[in-house]
């Protein structure tokens, strides 16, 4: 046991905490500086977490099998870039992206198709809401059985997982335009498709992007969990489950770090596109998302 390291980490924690307290209490008039503190505070917090993690694991000599210190994970990450890249390609670039595009696309198209029939909407919406709450990851073994071990089965799981949130959100988004606005389109003698493209789809955009954001997380989870049920010898889920078995916990954490970064970047990209597309929405105009 090495108390000095633990105490050092604790001191750093207290220092960082007081810096944050000081930062949030200051009234900054300058807009850019204010935005900068908005970023700095969570960043300081994140760094503090890492340092406490490092301090506790090193200070108390926590077995690395249990929880490796972040520095060890970092070196492992750098050392095994080729493996990680191959896994990333297999899981993310193939299964997740293709499944995500197909699932969201088909959910969107089905929503447009049933839009003209209130009957189908009343029938499908409760079912869609119901299915969204179900543990859909469970279809993974069935998909692996049907479509084989390669990425196709994972993409199939992702399609099923992303389909229903997209369907439900698009259908409710299409009702978001107000009666007054639809009446205005009528006075312009706009037909169904013109109203759809010029009024109702733009009005539905916040809902659609909400579904896209939810789905970005679901897609990654679906692909990784599906790999637990059988894969070729490459892929993030495969690597996690085999390296756990071999007690190479640092490799597992490196893989998780890659998954975390990929997930956050994916989400961030969609949020950025959302800001561009729904620039008119109050939540974007107010400068807060």
């Amino acid at each position: 046991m090495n108390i000095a390291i633990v105490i050092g980490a604790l001191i750093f924690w207290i220092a960082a905490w007081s810096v944050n307290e000081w930062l949030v209490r200051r009234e900054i008039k300058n807009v850019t500086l204010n935005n900068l503190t908005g970023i700095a505070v969570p960043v300081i917090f994140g760094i503090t977490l890492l340092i406490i993690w490092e301090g506790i694991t090193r200070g108390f000599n926590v077995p690395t099998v249990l929880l490796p210190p972040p520095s060890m994970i970092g070196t492992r990450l750098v050392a095994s870039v080729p493996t990680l890249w191959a896994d990333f390609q297999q899981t993310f670039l193939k299964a997740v992206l293709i499944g995500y595009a197909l699932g969201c696309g088909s959910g969107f198209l089905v929503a447009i198709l049933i839009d003209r029939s209130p009957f189908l909407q009343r029938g499908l919406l409760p079912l869609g809401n119901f299915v969204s709450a179900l543990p859909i990851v469970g279809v993974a073994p069935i998909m692996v059985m049907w479509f084989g071990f390669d990425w196709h089965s994972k993409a199939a799981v992702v399609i099923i997982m992303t389909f229903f949130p997209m369907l439900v959100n698009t259908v409710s988004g299409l009702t978001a335009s107000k009666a007054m606005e639809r009446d205005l389109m009528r006075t312009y003698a706009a037909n169904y498709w013109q109203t759809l493209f010029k009024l109702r789809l733009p009005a539905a955009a916040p809902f659609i992007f909400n579904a896209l954001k939810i789905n970005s997380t679901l897609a990654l989870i679906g692909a990784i969990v599906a790999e637990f049920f059988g894969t070729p010898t490459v892929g993030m889920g495969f690597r996690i489950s085999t390296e756990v078995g071999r007690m190479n916990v640092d490799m597992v954490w490196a893989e998780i770090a890659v998954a975390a970064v990929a997930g956050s970047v994916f989400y961030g990209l969609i949020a950025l596109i959302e800001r561009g597309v729904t620039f008119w929405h109050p939540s974007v105009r107010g400068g807060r998302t």
Partner: protein
Amino acid sequence: MFARLNEGKTFPVLLILTLLMVIWYGAAIKLNTPWQLDIYQRGDITEWTTTQFISDTLNQDRPVLPSAHQVFTEMWNTIVGKSITSKRSLVFHAWITLSATLLGFAIGTGLGILIAVGIIHNRAMDRSLMPWIVASQTIPILAVAPMIIVVLNAIGLSGLLPKALISTYLSFFPIVVGMVKGFRSPEQIQLDLMHTYSAGPMQTFFKLRWPSSVPYLFTSMKVAIAIALVGAIVGELPTGAVAGLGARLLSGSYYGQTVQIWSALFTAAALAAVLVMLVGLAEKLVIKRMGMAT
């Protein structure tokens, strides 16, 4: 008559369910056909009637897609037909999953509420923690699940708690986000009123913020309990298929027992539906008692 049926929700839902059933049987016949032809060829059966062929495709031992009645028969046999303590009873497995789900959900809800209270009362906590909580939702947390299980197993913690911890991990995010929103939902004018009553922070919290956050609590609890169940099921995958619905899924996929997979899947779905409905019921009762029903 038809117009009245058309108005409500029940009829469209039923119609679509029937349609799904028809598609299911159609797909089952189509997907199981090659295997059935194979069986006939090997058995030297050269002549068969269409009805016999269809009924054979729908009753295979290990079908590619089991038919609905096979799944429900299997569910009936394993839920009602076996004694609860038997390892082949789905009730036994469902209970194992359910107990982990409920424990994780309870811890997650408590933890989530505590963190939310901290966030609304401390500006530094809000600014530093909130972005990380939002970011952590974009991370595939479930990927960590098998590792947590195996690592906790290695230090001698096994059984209920590790699985419950994964459920906790998953379910506390929706609670935090929902409760922060809920605690902040009282308007400035109401907070000012509390101020004129010279209410302290504790009184403001318990008399204004807490009651007005209750609808948010139930909304996020519905999300949280569904996701807690997913967490428990995934948590059962790496333990080597011992017990629980996740283990049934895994062992079914190892041995090609499709009927077993589907019945475990439907049981999990039913469990999720019942849990969400129970939370909804509690919501209705509480909201009514509090006089907030609209």
